[in-house]
């Protein structure tokens, strides 16, 4: 069975989400703060960690940093509480594989966990931990926030860049508008999905990507978008 570690300091979250994850077929380990999680991970390594950010003793962000520093690339899904883009950018910098804003639908959590597990390459850093990403002629330098196509740099609005970053770290995955809105904007807004379409259009224009014959961003009718599968980390 797939062993996952759920870390949250709020007992109500552990009490309700734990059994839910068990019922959906995971073997669930629980920890109520970062230090306890570290002990658990050392004793009984999980294949995926679902991690809350704000916790006493050792918070989720610090735990993640420690793991990555030790070269532990166990996939991590970060549960953020505040919808600030700063926090999300940080999560990426620290090598979280995905993040989900509270409150969330538990089914959505499971879908994300499965997607991470599908993407994971055991023992190797995930794309989300790479500083530079390449997809064909498209190159994204996440540290300097620069993008280039065929070696030529171009300018994007900060939000379009954040969107491209999320797309490139989640290649070949169906991403709904709601999910992109939650992940990149931190919004839980029905009207906001229009904002996603606007930024996708901006990206496509900059990339010279024809929606009918997409090289990079494919439209999945009635559902969302999917980024090309051939994304690799530049080392």
């Amino acid at each position, binding site marked *: 069975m797939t062993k996952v570690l759920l870390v949250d300091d709020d007992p109500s979250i552990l009490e309700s989400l734990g059994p839910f994850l068990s019922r959906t077929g995971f073997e669930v380990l629980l920890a109520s703060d970062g230090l306890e999680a570290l002990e658990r991970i050392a004793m009984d390594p999980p294949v995926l960690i679902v991690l809350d950010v704000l916790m006493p003793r050792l918070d989720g962000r610090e735990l993640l940093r420690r793991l990555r520093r030790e070269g532990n690339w166990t996939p991590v899904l970060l549960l953020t509480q*505040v*919808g*600030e*883009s*700063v926090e999300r950018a940080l999560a990426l910098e620290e090598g979280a594989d995905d993040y989900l804003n509270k*409150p969330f639908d538990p089914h959505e959590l499971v879908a994300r966990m499965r997607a991470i597990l599908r993407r994971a390459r055991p023992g190797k850093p995930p794309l989300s931990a790479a500083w530079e990403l390449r997809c064909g002629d498209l190159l994204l330098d996440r540290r300097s926030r620069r993008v280039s196509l065929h070696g030529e740099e171009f300018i994007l*609005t*900060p*939000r379009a860049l954040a969107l491209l970053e999320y797309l490139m770290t989640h290649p070949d995955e169906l991403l709904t508008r709601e999910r992109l809105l939650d992940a990149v*904007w*931190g*919004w*839980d*807004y029905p*009207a*906001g999905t*229009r*904002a996603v379409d*606007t930024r996708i259009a901006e990206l496509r224009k900059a990339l010279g990507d024809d929606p009918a014959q997409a090289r990079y961003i494919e439209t999945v009718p009635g559902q969302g978008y999917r980024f090309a599968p051939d994304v690799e980390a530049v080392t």
Partner: protein
Amino acid sequence: MKAGWLAIGVLGLGVMLGAAAWNASAAANPWLVIRVQASVLIFGFGLLLLVLGSIEWLRSRHFEQRLNSLRKESEEERRRFLRRLDHELKNPLTSILAGLANLDSDESEEDRQSTRRSIQSQVQRMRDLLADLRKLAELETRPIESGRVDLAEILRESREMVLEKPGAGDRRIDLTIPHAPWPLPLVSGDRDLLFLAVHNLVENAVKFTEAGARIELRAYEDGSNAIIEVADTGPGIPDEERALIWEELYRGRAASGLPGSGLGLALVRAIAEKHGGKVLVRSRPGQGTVFSLTIPIDSVI
């Protein structure tokens, strides 16, 4: 600060009295002339201090009083906000509790289904409220993106989007955007936030009117601002409610029974102010309402 000015005033008064006493004791002194002149000078200096000190003391006292009244006002606003928040949370929670109680006694699967749906919808209501609260809090702290934004396009999109809603098409929604002598100038700001603001106003116009009503969406400029107007032939906003609609979680009488968090207009105002603009309302009960959103034109063009 205030006490400091008072002390300077008192010091000035002291210097004046001292100078006067010195002057009075000057009789039969060989340095008489010099002393009289010096005492007059010192008296003048004291007078200056007295006047300056009193003026500043009065000013700082006035300032403090204003600060106090502002503080009281925001205290009062905070209390009102908490009262409303309490109210907004109480209702969905009560209904969830009732739903959970019903779930145990519901006999048929059909009943249970409908109870579950009702619980879900109350949970959604609380989620929406939380999303709006978070958005407001973020607006205060997070810097906004600054790009060149076409408000005319946003107005067109908002119209399309509300027309997709069931029933919205029963209203006549007209759109007027200038083309001559030039199109509506671009503004500088965060497109997603401006869309949210305009969309909220248009959505409100649909929400608070009935089938057959007229809604007019207009855009124009005055040389330094782009102005968006959302006008409707709805019930209008009562005079006594007009100042309150901007407050967080305030819901007017017309809003009872309608969906919404009571944060929509507070958001619109916060977004307008973040862009250096403003939003105003004019309304006549029984005739309708017009909201106007003013955003400064992008000066870089």
